[in-house]
């Protein structure tokens, strides 16, 4: 059996127009915005019921690192802990945002599998097709510019990945991993 890759969309951080974003997204992080834009397009062919029952895998190496560092820097400098920065600092916050904005109520996992990221995400998506008809995979890693050289020094293989959000929808069949 073969997989059915139904759709694929991607966006680079340079293409994001945050200034004209919907005001409802004012508390969203850049990762959330980018992930939403590609996932919205990738699921456009699905019915509302199919989206509701969709499985979702968000795969991210560094998660919401901007919010984490903003939270810690603010706290260390002022002793003030900002709840919105904490809420947005969790790796899982992008998944929660996507579920709310798109109406996804099926099985959903956030993965951060280091050097195993790509393979782990495919294996997880394949497993979730045991529970639902469709699975949406979103890779997203938009990180602060000042950290990119350090991340690439530690993980050279991320060169084609940092600064991008990518979304794919697979339909039940078999995901070749």
């Amino acid at each position, binding site marked *: 059996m073969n997989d059915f890759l139904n759709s694929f969309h991607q966006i680079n951080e340079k293409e994001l127009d945050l200034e004209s974003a919907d005001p409802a997204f004012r508390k969203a992080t850049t990762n959330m915005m980018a992930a939403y834009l590609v996932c919205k397009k990738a699921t456009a062919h699905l019915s509302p019921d199919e989206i509701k029952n969709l499985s*979702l895998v968000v795969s*991210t*190496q*560094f*998660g919401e*690192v901007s919010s*984490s*560092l903003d*939270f*810690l*820097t603010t*706290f*260390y*400098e002022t002793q003030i*802990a*900002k*709840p919105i920065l*904490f*809420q947005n*600092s*969790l*790796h*899982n*916050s992008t*998944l*929660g*945002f996507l*579920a*709310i904005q798109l*109406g*996804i*109520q*099926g*099985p*959903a*996992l*956030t*993965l*951060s*599998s*280091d*050097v*195993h*990221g790509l*393979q*782990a995400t495919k*294996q*997880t998506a*394949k*497993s*979730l097709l*045991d*529970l639902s008809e469709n699975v949406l995979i979103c890779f997203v890693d938009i990180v602060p510019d000042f*950290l990119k*050289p*350090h*991340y690439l*020094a*530690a*993980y050279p293989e991320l060169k084609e990945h940092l600064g991008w959000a990518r979304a794919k929808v697979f339909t039940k069949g078999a995901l070749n991993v």
Partner: protein
Amino acid sequence: MTRQKNEVKIVGSEAICSSGVDKNQIFESCLSGNSAVQIATGLAPISEKNWQSFHQTLSPSRCSLVSSACLTKALADADWSEADLQDCGFIFATTTSQIDQWQHSLPVIYMKDLTFEEVANATRYQSLGSTLVQLQKEFKITGPSSVVASSCSASLQAINLATLWLRTGLVKKCIVGSTEILSDLTVNGFNSMRLLTKGVCKPFDKTRAGINLGEASAFLCLEAQDYSLRKAQALVAGLGLSTDAFHPTAPEPNGAGSLKAMRMALHDAHIQAEQIDWFHAHGTGSAANDLAESKAITSLFSSNAFSKASTSSTKSIHGHTLGACGALETVLAILSLQRNLILPTYNTSEIDPAITLDIVLKPREKNLNYILKNSLGFGGINATTVLKNSSLH
């Protein structure tokens, strides 16, 4: 797929937390009500004396230290050799991993005094998956691997994902582990959301005022039915996963998402709600969680049988260990199945009148065939696992 093939064997398990350095110590603390929560801070850290007993591993981080110690014990408990670790699945769950290695070096105010190499080294620890990669090297574990970072549901999701891997034949055996340490991010973050209590938490109590954060590591060794003749400590009989799509940090007030996950798990296990002998609840002690989860459990029942649904939370003893709570509490549930004892909710004296379940407040002997374990997490992520007494097999 037959019902028997759906069930996965748990052949080894171990845990370390503030309440003990092995699962039996923790279980005894939960039985006797010996809480490790520090009054005044409301935190449940692993003691310094215990930290000093963990041997040095490939990484100096506390997450790696306690993970290595706990995994060593779990493998011994399973009687797994190096050969068993070849082609062995490994799923780790964490929300902060080795944060102690970068929380004081990567914020901008500290970075300016560091060299490029020092910052690059700190970023290696920033990836949540770095702990798993180190454990794979240390223990020579080869096989498919993944790191689940789905907030407080992470490790119960990991158990469910491992079950899927075993059912579908991706692997014949799989390690599931999770570790959380206390950090400036989590302690001050939860405090900023007014979710922490300085006293001991009181799950399901009318006057519950918040959660206690704790540290923990827990590992389980899972096998497919046909991998070995090892006796199972318990069986994973059913799994459920769902998403609220409601709010970034609050559960859907009626527990609709958790209800969906529990129904999925019961259906998967081919049993009815009435057959669950103990609902080992997420039960954090927060106003919103306990009410939503209670409503969800109540809604599982078509009659008023919910009033007999034995339900409790052990978090007032070991605290809320975030991503590790599902694995830690599953290890405790396995011991409960083996000893036919329900662990109670301590510190609760006046049950919230809106909660109409049978909240267990004292240790209770009961013939336990099935236990349902719940986790709910930020992002509206719900996970449920149904555990079955291996003597029923």
